[in-house]
């Protein structure tokens, strides 16, 4: 592997890793707030990707509006699913495994709605970024990858600030940590949970636009990506915000490097082996202390 390849692969891994981080964050936030293992998180990415693409078709909108459309699409659908489906199931005191199955049902529904609306063929994404290589520290790199890394970093930065400094963000943290105490302090846990889903959907939606811009958009792009993001979240420590970010990056790098160095066909297998190894030897992930069974 030449230095140039090394740089390209690292950048590629970081970019895809950022996308995993964005989804993994949502998965972690949801599991922390509700103990739901959200198999439909990948579908929010798909919806975001499709929403962004549609907004482009409609108006030929500039990139930042496409991204906004994706964010809104993912956020709205995620919030809708929480309010209509998961909250109902929680009120009915349905067991955890049944809720997990329901998330699979939601995933099937969203995929098929998307197929009805957008068809089953992969859709080409427009070139949202200047094409052609740019020089960066002496290497020619794709500006797309750099944009993805920068934008994801920005989104995650905003999220951290949101959790640190806004009333709502702090309330959400409190409600996730101890719903009963939060309720006593006058926080509406139902509301913070809705926001949790909305925000995780928004991040997945953003990830959808970014991922679409790298390849294409299709109705079934979400599920496996969501599973990989779950692996990433587990890698960093399920339920930990920083863990999801780091886990996503590491998983993206592992996947991209094993794709280049070992084999493209088995790059997903390498990811799964990493997953199993992590579960076995670091069951609480890289960043969390103290076991937490979900």
């Amino acid at each position: 592997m030449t230095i140039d390849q090394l740089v390209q692969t690292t950048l590629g891994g970081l970019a895809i890793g950022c996308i995993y981080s964005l989804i993994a964050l949502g998965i972690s936030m949801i599991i922390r707030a509700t103990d739901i293992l959200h198999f439909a998180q990948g579908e929010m990415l798909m919806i975001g990707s499709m929403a962004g693409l549609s907004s482009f078709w409609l108006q030929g909108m500039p990139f930042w509006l496409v991204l906004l459309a994706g964010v809104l699409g993912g956020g709205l659908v995620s919030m809708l699913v929480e309010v209509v489906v998961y909250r109902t199931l929680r009120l009915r005191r349905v067991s955890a495994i049944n809720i997990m199955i329901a998330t699979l049902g939601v995933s099937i529904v969203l995929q098929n709605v998307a197929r009805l609306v957008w068809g089953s063929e992969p859709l080409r994404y427009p070139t949202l970024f200047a094409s052609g290589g740019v020089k960066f520290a002496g290497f020619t790199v794709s500006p797309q990858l750099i944009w993805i890394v920068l934008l994801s970093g920005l989104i995650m930065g905003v999220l951290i600030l949101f959790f640190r400094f806004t009333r709502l963000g702090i309330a959400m943290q409190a409600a996730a940590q101890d719903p009963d105490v939060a309720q006593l302090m006058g926080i509406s846990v139902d509301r913070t949970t809705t926001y949790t889903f909305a925000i995780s959907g928004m991040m997945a939606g953003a990830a959808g636009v970014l991922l679409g811009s790298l390849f294409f958009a299709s109705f079934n792009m979400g599920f496996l990506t969501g599973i990989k993001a779950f692996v990433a979240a587990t890698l960093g420590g399920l339920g930990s915000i920083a863990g999801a970010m780091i886990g996503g990056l590491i998983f993206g790098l592992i996947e991209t490097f094993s794709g280049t160095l070992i084999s493209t066909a088995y790059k997903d297998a390498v990811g799964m082996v990493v997953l199993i190894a992590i579960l076995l030897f670091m069951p609480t992930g890289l960043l969390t202390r103290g076991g937490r069974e979900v």
Partner: protein
Amino acid sequence: MRSSLIARLGVALLLAAVPLLQSNAYWVHIFSLALIGVILAFSQQLLVGMAGIVSLGQGAFYGIGAYTAASLAISFHVPFVLAIVAGGLLAGLSSLLLIPIVRLKGSSLAVATLGFAIIVHLVMLNEDWLTGGSIGMIDIPAPTLFGFSLGGEKALYYICLITAAAVFLAFDRIAHSRFGRALTAISQDEEAARASGINIAVYKSKCFLVAAIASGIAGGLYAFHSRYLNPNDFDFQKSIDILIMVVIGGIRSLPGAALGAAIVVLIPELLRASGEFRLLLFGVMVIVFAGAGSKGLSGILVDLVKYIAQHGQRWLLQKPWTARL
């Protein structure tokens, strides 16, 4: 005891009569597929209903059984019964790969099995020399017994029915044995189970082994049923479908698992008329049944029958309009 025996015989007779009632070859083909699904659901029920293990990897054992049976039949002309048994055994053998992960719990274990399923699927997809790669395996010979071809849809239906019935009886016996009690104990309280002398890891591994053998046998049946294998028949989606079967039908009940399997296989077929919408409707049904609680459809039906038995009689006697009937 006696009434359950009568109920079982009744259901068996009814199922045996199905190809006579609906002899359209296409539908008989689909019914056989449903019976294969029933076996898969039984295997999942052993794991999730008895031992409390959520497996998202049964599709992998299903595939291993199918490819084993198909390879033996194609390359070595092994008789179909032996090929299917070998499929079950190899699937069981490969379940031993899960031994390291049985000490995981809950969703960690579920996700680890999903990882296993994804790896096995990639092997099927990429190892052309072993599995035919993305093209899969074609020209699987029709099953024959003592020189008679059993390749017809009806013959296959009965093969599937007999196998499913055998697996049902086997699992029913397991449920009421020392082994089954140990698994149930583990699912209810691991610490108390250990304190009663049960080695958790050993019993979970054994549970995976038995479930994998059943799934592998289902795979062997599938190879002869479809006569063509494609790796995408055994992707992780299949594993998820198998779990959905059990949850829809009702966790802990073998008849419930069978009901769930029938729904998962047949409903999309029945909804074919709704064309594009069928999978969408299926997804909605999954959500609704999951929301109905852990007793699933079988539990709801049992409650309904009990309710009717309790109140129906009184209605029949009291309601004035019944007199006019």
